[in-house]
Structures are given as structure tokens and as C-alpha cells.
């Protein structure tokens, strides 16, 4: 509701001017799209991979302890550290993965290529998240009585049919919970990863809403706009959660 002068010496009351300016700002609107793409990709990738690994772990009899420990490890890595880790692997000049891609004839450069940048932050953000999702999915799978699965097998359902008609519906409370938690995570807690890998670039291709709050407020020193963005973000996540509860919960079997 205030706009400071360029030297931060005094502020001027502008009412809802900050909001008005934001909504007319093409960069801000682009950031919405970026956030939508980024958070859906992170949610889908981290939950998909976690579910797949959990199904494998659920069927595992020998060595399941080691397997689980290894899978849970990434969760202990701080987001910023994870970001740096991935950044080094894919670094255009010294990165191992980028070097091998180069050998294969692919010129990796996430500093310039927007899609590559987005891909990298999605992978890096999802990576730490997989552990968390894996734990919940595994617990969910193990809560399904063995005899129900056996009954389905006797009824003639093959693995995929069993999964589709029995396991997936019974897992839906877990899936729903993870969906809410992961979307919120992608919105807010991926700041560290983005900051270390791309710093929102190239060309704002990875500037999600929460990153824009930071860059406008603390880099651009436009605290008024930054504060307005925070409010919008808060309302947005609130609405999103309500929508998820209203519409998806109806299809969840408890």
C-alpha cells in the first residue's frame, strides 16, 4: 500500500496501486504460467517416481532395509545444497552430466536454454521430494491388507488390473494428502533450489511466484510490490487448497 522513493527515505501511500500495477505487468502474469508449469511438473514427477519406487519396495523381500534407507537419504539434503549439487552436475563447463551429454552430441546449456533450465530445476526440486513421497506411499501400500490383494488375484485380476481397481483407489487418501503437500512445497519451498541453479533465469524462465517476491523485493528493492505479491501468493495457495479439498476429496475413499 506504500511506494518508497528510489533512495528509501520516504514512502508514499498508493492504496491498492501496487496490486493494480502487478496485474497489468506482463512479467508477473508470465510468472503465473511459469509457476503453474513448474509446480505441476514437480508434483507429477516426484509423486510418480515415488509411487513407482514404493511399489517396487513393497514387493521386495530381501534387502528392503538398505533400499529404503538409500531412498530416504535425499530428504536429509537441504534444498540449497541439492540445488548446488545438481548445478555442478549439469554445469556447462565442469558438469559431469553436461560433459557426457556433450560426448553424445547434445549441447547442454541451461544458462541459455529456457526449457533446459526448467527441466533442471524440476528434477532438482523433485529429487529431494521423492523420499518424502516414497515414505508415505510405502506406508499406504503396506496398509492395504494382503488378503484383499490375494482375493483380487483369485478373482482373476492381473497385476495392472489389481493396481488400477484395488490398490489405486485404496491409496487415494495418501495420494490426495501428498498432492496438497507437494503443490504447497513446489510453490514455496523450492526457492533454494531455483536460487542456486538458475536464479530465476534465463529470461525469467524459472521465476516462479515466490522467487519473484524475493527478486523484486530484495534485488529490485521494490518492497511494496513484493509485499503485494506475497499477499496474492498467500490467497492463491489458500484457494488452491480449498479447491483440492472440495473437488478431489469427493473421489477419495477413506
Amino acid at each position, binding site marked *: 500500500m506504500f511506494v518508497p522513493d528510489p533512495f528509501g527515505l520516504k514512502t508514499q501511500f498508493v492504496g491498492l496501486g501496487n496490486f493494480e500495477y502487478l496485474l497489468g505487468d506482463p512479467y508477473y502474469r508470465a510468472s503465473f504460467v511459469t509457476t503453474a508449469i513448474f509446480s505441476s511438473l514437480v508434483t507429477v514427477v516426484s509423486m510418480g517416481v515415488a509411487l513407482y519406487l514404493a511399489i517396487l519396495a513393497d514387493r521386495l523381500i530381501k534387502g528392503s532395509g538398505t533400499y529404503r534407507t538409500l531412498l530416504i537419504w535425499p530428504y536429509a539434503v537441504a534444498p540449497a545444497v541439492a540445488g548446488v549439487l545438481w548445478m555442478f552436475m549439469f554445469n556447462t563447463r565442469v558438469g559431469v552430466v553436461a560433459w557426457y551429454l556433450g560426448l553424445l552430441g547434445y549441447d547442454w546449456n541451461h544458462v541459455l536454454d529456457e526449457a533446459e533450465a526448467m527441466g533442471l530445476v524440476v528434477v532438482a526440486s523433485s529429487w529431494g521430494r521423492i523420499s518424502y513421497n516414497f515414505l508415505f506411499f510405502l506406508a499406504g501400500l503396506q496398509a492395504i491388507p494382503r488378503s484383499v490383494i490375494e*482375493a*483380487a*488375484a*483369485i*478373482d482373476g*485380476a492381473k497385476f495392472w488390473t489389481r493396481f488400477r481397481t484395488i490398490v489405486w483407489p485404496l491409496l487415494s487418501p495418501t495420494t490426495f494428502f501428498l498432492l496438497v503437500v507437494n503443490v504447497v512445497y513446489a510453490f514455496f519451498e523450492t526457492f533454494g533450489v531455483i536460487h542456486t541453479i538458475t536464479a530465476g533465469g534465463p529470461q525469467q524462465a524459472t521465476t516462479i511466484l515466490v522467487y519473484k517476491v524475493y527478486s523484486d523485493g530484495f534485488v529490485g528493492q521494490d518492497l511494496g510490490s513484493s509485499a503485494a505479491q506475497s499477499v496474492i501468493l498467500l490467497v492463491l495457495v489458500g484457494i488452491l487448497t480449498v479447491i483440492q479439498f472440495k473437488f478431489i476429496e469427493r473421489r477419495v*475413499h477413506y
Partner: protein
Amino acid sequence: MATLTLDNVRKSFGATDVIHGVNIEVTDGEFIVIVGPSGCGKSTLLRMVAGLEGITSGEIRIDGHRVNEAEPMERNIAMVFQNYALYPHMSVFDNMAYGLKIAKTPKDEIAARVASAAKLLQLEPYLQRKPRELSGGQRQRVAMGRAIVRKPAVFLFDEPLSNLDAKLRVQMRLEIKQLQRELGVTSLYVTHDQVEAMTLADRMIVMNAGVADQIGKPLEVYENPQTEFVAGFIGSPATNFMPAGSVGVSVGKTVGIRPEHIQLTDTPTRLKARVAYCEALGAETLVHLRLPHGQLITVRQGGHLPLPSEGTDLWLGWHDAAMMVFGADGRRI
């Protein structure tokens, strides 16, 4: 309708043998009950027939065809689980129709088969309900309905009544028996409850530590147990066992006498014992007596006989024919 053959079937988990070679030939439409204490391998045996456990050696044949390697769905069997194993997110109708839908049965035939099973099991008013909205007995019926609609060759029951209360158990026991008679489907039924075994079975298999101790008609097994274990396990209250020497038998190691075969008298007969306590059950009375060296003996007598007072000395008498003599290996002599 089918026959079921177990031919020297064995199972081991690693180095531990749990089933030590079971042989049985089940004829078409027969109701076989496998009975034994927990951990004797009876459920494992059933699961092997179902295809849920591998077979270490031996052969299982349904209708003469070897099914060792067949998936559960290829064996044409249906199983009723102890915890019912209903699909919690499906209505009663969908629970029963699940197998048929997977087999791509035409819709109207599914509806017809489920309707007739529901009628048979008195489930018609509940078809649209979810399992959690049903009572234990109704869930049990749904589990049976799910088995019936598929018209399997063999029914497998894994302790289906043990989650029900005592009264319902007696009622469902009768229903299962009637249903099986009506449908004439070959059935294998696992239980630890000897009363269920006695009442349901055409023939029963008494299992003890992975071995089928005795296979036979319930009354045959009761009257003529082949091992000490069977004599002790079948019948309630349990058979009294005494060292052979103490009752004047020169062969064998142990002598078993059923509680109802002992008469109590005031006049000297075979053994003297002191009444420890009595349980008057109405129609019958269980008298527990202590022999001079401390062993307890149970006697069952008619409820019309006068209740002996505790602490009095009485004589135990029995006919020679009532004595079941067992050797050191536990086998009947």
C-alpha cells in the same frame, strides 16, 4: 464340479519344513475340513491349493490336471478369507461382480448371477451398500457370494467363521453346510475349531505339525483316533491320558479314555480319586477329580445325576473297550 488331489505335497520355507507330505483324494462335491492347532500348517496347505504359496515338492491336481505352476486365477477356485477380504471401496454388488467383470462376462449375466447369489444369501437389500456398512455376518455372506457367483470348481475356506461371535458362528456354520449341499461344490475348509470340523465335514484331516495325522469321517476319527494327538485334539473336554502301567495295561506307553466313558461310583472299581471341582452345564456335568499322585481327570456325566460334593473320594470305572492304547511314538496300538 471337480475332484482335488494332493499327492505327497510338501512345503518348506528355507530350511524349515512346514508341510511334510500330505496325500488326499477329494471326490467331487465332497466337503473336507482341515483341522489342527495354530501353526500346524493347515492354512499354508490351503494357500498352496489356492496358488498363493509355492509348492516345494509333490503335486496338486484339480480334475486330474496338474496345477502346481498355474496362477490362482487359472485354477478355477474361489476362496473365502478369515477377514473376508472384501474390497472396501466397492459396493456389495461390485464386490460380487468383480471377478465376473474381469472375466468379461456379459452385463446381464453378471446381474443375473449376482441377483441369484444375493437371493440365496439374503443379501438383496444390501447390494448398494459398502462393506463397512454391514455387520460381520453380512460381510461373511458377501465373501461367500463373491465365491459363489464365479461358479468355481473348488471352494476354499480359510477359517471363515473365527471373526464372528459365538451365536452367529453356529448359525453361519449351518448356512455354509446347507449352501455347500445345495451347490454341490467340492470344498476345502480350514479351521482350528473341532466343533466346526465335526459338524461340517464329510471327511476331516487332522493336522499336527505339518503332518496329516488322520483322515476320515468325523465320527470315525472321534471314535477311533489313530494317534495320541488326534485323541487329545478331537473331543471336548479333552481325552484323559494316563500312563499305561498305572491302569494295568502291559503294552504301549499311554492310555486315553474319553471323559464320557468313565463312570463314577462309591464302590471300589479301578482307580480312586478325590473330587476337585464340578462344572454343571445343565444338560451335562463335568467332574474334575484328582488322582493320588496329583493328575487331574475329567469325567462327563448326565446333568440329571446328583452333583458330587467337592473333596469326597470316588471310584473311577470304565470298560476295557473304552481304553485307547498308544505306543511310545504316539501311534495307536
